[in-house]
C-alpha cells in the first residue's frame, strides 16, 4: 500500500487523495456541463466561462492596476508636492511621510482619491447596464420604468463621495498642520 502511494506520489506529485478529490470535482462539473450540452447551449456557456476569466485576469485587473499606478504617479506623494518624485521612488521616503515624521507636509493624498474612485467604478461595474441605459428597452418592457435616472444617480453619488473625501482630506490636512505648528513652537525661542 505504502509502495503504491509512494509510486503515485513520485509520478503524480501529490497524495493520491489529491488526485481523487480533483477527479471527483471534474466528474461533477462534467456532469453539470453535460446538461448544458444537452440543452444545446454549451458553446455560449463555454465562451462566457473563458471570457469571464480572461476579462477579469487579463483585462479588468491590468486596467485598474494601471489606473492606480497612473494616479499614484500623477499625484504628489505629499500634500505640498515637494520632492514627491523621490518620495515615490525611495521607499524610505514614503515611509517617512506616512510615519508622520513630517506632519507639516500632511498625510498622503492618494487614498483620498483611491477610495471614492474605486467605489464609483465598482458601482459602474455592477450597474453599468442601467447606468449606461444598455438594457433600457427590456427594462422598460419589464418594469414600466426608465433607466435614465441611473446615470444621474451615479454621477451624483460619485460627486458626493469625492466631496466627502475632499472635505475629510482638508480636515486632516488642517489637523496635521496645526500639530506641526505645535511641534515646531517650542523650538522657536531657542533659535
Amino acid at each position, binding site marked *: 500500500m505504502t509502495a503504491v502511494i509512494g509510486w503515485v506520489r513520485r509520478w503524480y506529485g501529490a497524495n493520491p487523495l489529491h488526485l481523487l478529490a480533483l477527479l471527483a470535482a471534474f466528474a461533477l462539473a462534467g456532469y453539470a456541463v453535460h446538461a448544458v450540452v*444537452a*440543452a444545446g447551449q454549451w458553446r455560449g456557456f463555454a465562451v*462566457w*466561462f473563458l471570457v469571464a476569466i480572461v476579462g*477579469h485576469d487579463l483585462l479588468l485587473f491590468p486596467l485598474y492596476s494601471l489606473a492606480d499606478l497612473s494616479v499614484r504617479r500623477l499625484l504628489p506623494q505629499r500634500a505640498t508636492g515637494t520632492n514627491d518624485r523621490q518620495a515615490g521612488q525611495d521607499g524610505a521616503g514614503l515611509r517617512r511621510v506616512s510615519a508622520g515624521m513630517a506632519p507639516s507636509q500632511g498625510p498622503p493624498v492618494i487614498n483620498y482619491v483611491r477610495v471614492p474612485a474605486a467605489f464609483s467604478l465598482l458601482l459602474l461595474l455592477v450597474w453599468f447596464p442601467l447606468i449606461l441605459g444598455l438594457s433600457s428597452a427590456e427594462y422598460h418592457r419589464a418594469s414600466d420604468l426608465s433607466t435614465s435616472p441611473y446615470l444621474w444617480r451615479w454621477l451624483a453619488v460619485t460627486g458626493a463621495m469625492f466631496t466627502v473625501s475632499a472635505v475629510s482630506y482638508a480636515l486632516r490636512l488642517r489637523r496635521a498642520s496645526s500639530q506641526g505648528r505645535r511641534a515646531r513652537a517650542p523650538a522657536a525661542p531657542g533659535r
Partner: protein
Amino acid sequence: MAGKRRQRRRAGCQREKLAAADPAAGSVSATSRKVVAALVAVVAVLLTVVAVLRAAVAALRSAVAALRGKVAALADPAGLLRRTLSRPPPGPFRPGTWRSPLRGQWLTSLLGLVLLVGLTILAVTGLLSYAAYNPRLPGNDETRGAPLLKFYLFSWPTHPSWLYRVDQGIHITLGLALVPFVLAKLWSVLPKLFTWPPVRSAAQALERLSLIMIVGGVLFEFATGILDIQNYYVFPFSFYTAHLYGAWVFIAGLVTHVTLKFPHMLAGLRSRSLRRELRTPLSETRPEEPDPAGLRAPSPAAPTISRRGLLAGVGGASVTLVALAVGQSIGGWTRRTALFAPRGLSATGAFPVNRTAASIGLTSADVGDSYRLTLIGTRTVTLTREQILALPQHTAELPIACVEGWSYAASWTGVRLADLARLAGIADPGIAQIESIQPKGSFRAAALSAAQVSDPQSLLALRVNGADLPRDHGYPARTIIPNAPGVHNTKWVNKITFLENA
C-alpha cells in the same frame, strides 16, 4: 606568446640591419650571420605556426564541446526544457514585478474565509430558489437534464410565506455584497496565475486546471446574475440553465478548493492577529512574512495604504452596494434608499412591476367585458369577472417576491383556489395548471402543487390593497400563492385546470 614572437622577429631584423651596417665584418662571419638569421626566422615561423595551430585547435575543441552540449541537450529534452523554464519570461512572470506589500497568506486567508461563508450561503440560497419553482411538476423546470443534481428537491412549502422572499433577497443582496470580496480575493492571488514554470507536476497541472471551475464559475455566476437582474439579456443561453449548471461547476470547484486549501487558510489566519491589524496604521504597516505558497511579494514596495485601510475599503464598498440596493427587498420606506437596484426608488410608486401588460401585447378587449375565466375539473365552468366577485372573497397579507431580488408585501383579496376547484367538481385538489391570457413567453403558465392549491391563503386575487388590480399587476385576475416565486403568481389568468389528488 604573440608578443614574444614579435620581439624575436624584431630582434632578427635588428641583427640583419647591424650586419648590413658593418661593412668591416668578414664574408665568413657574414655567412654565419645569415645562417643564424635564417635559423631564427625559421624558428620564428615555426613558433608562429604552432601558436596558430594551437589556437585553432582550442577554438575547434570549444566549438565541438558546445556542439556536443547542444546535441546532448537535444538528446535530453527534459533538461533543455528545465533550463528554458527556469528563467521566467519578462513581465508578470517575473516575481519581482509584483510589489504590493499587502499581499500575503494572512490577507488571502481572511478574504478566503469571508468568501467561504458568503459563497456557501449564496449557493444554498440559490439552490433553494430553484427548489421553489417546484421543478418536478410538469412544465415548471426551466433547466431540463442532470436528474442527479436534483436529488435535494422537495415539494416547496407554502409556509412560512416569507421564506422565498428572504431566501431570494439574501441571494441577490449577498451576491452584490460579495462582489468587492471576490475582486479583492482574486487580486490577492493574481501573481499565482503567472507562476513560472507554469507546471511543475501532474498534480499541480490538474489543480491549476481545476481553478477554471472556481474562478470561471464565480465570475460567470456573478456576471450572469448581475446582468439578469438588470434585464440585460446579452448572453447567448437561457439564464436559468446557465446559472444553475454554472453554479454546479462552481460548487465542484469550491468544494475542491476548500478541501485542498483549508489547512493553508487556517495557517494563514493564525499567522497574524486581526485585532492587531485593525490597530495598525499605515506607518506601522509591514509586509507579511514570506509564505510557502509565495503569495507575499519577494521584494515588497513601501505601503501606500494600511492593511486595515484595504479591509475597510473592501468592507465599505460591500456595505455601500448593499445599502444602495437592499431597500428593494425590504420594502416600506427603505425602498426610497435603493438608488442602485432595479426596483428601488422609482417615480411611478412603490409597487414594482415585472412584465407590463403592454409588453405582452395585452389589449383592452382581452381584459374587458369579454373576459372569461375557464375552470376545468370533472366539469368545465366559465365565469365572468362579476361572477368571480360574487364568490366568497378572502383577504391575505402576502409578499410577492421576484427572482430578481425585489419584493413587496401587499393585501390581496380574491377567491380561494380550493373554492374554485370545488366549483369545477374537484373536492380534494391535486396539482393545478394556471394559464394566462399572455399568448406566449416564459411563465405564461405555471403548475402548482397540491399543497399550494389547497392552502387557504392561495387566492385568485381580483383586488390588491383595497383597489382593483392594476392592469400591469394582472387585471382582471391573478393568482397569489404564499411563498411561491413571483413568476408563479400568474397574471391575467383565464384558465385553470384542476386535477384530483392522486
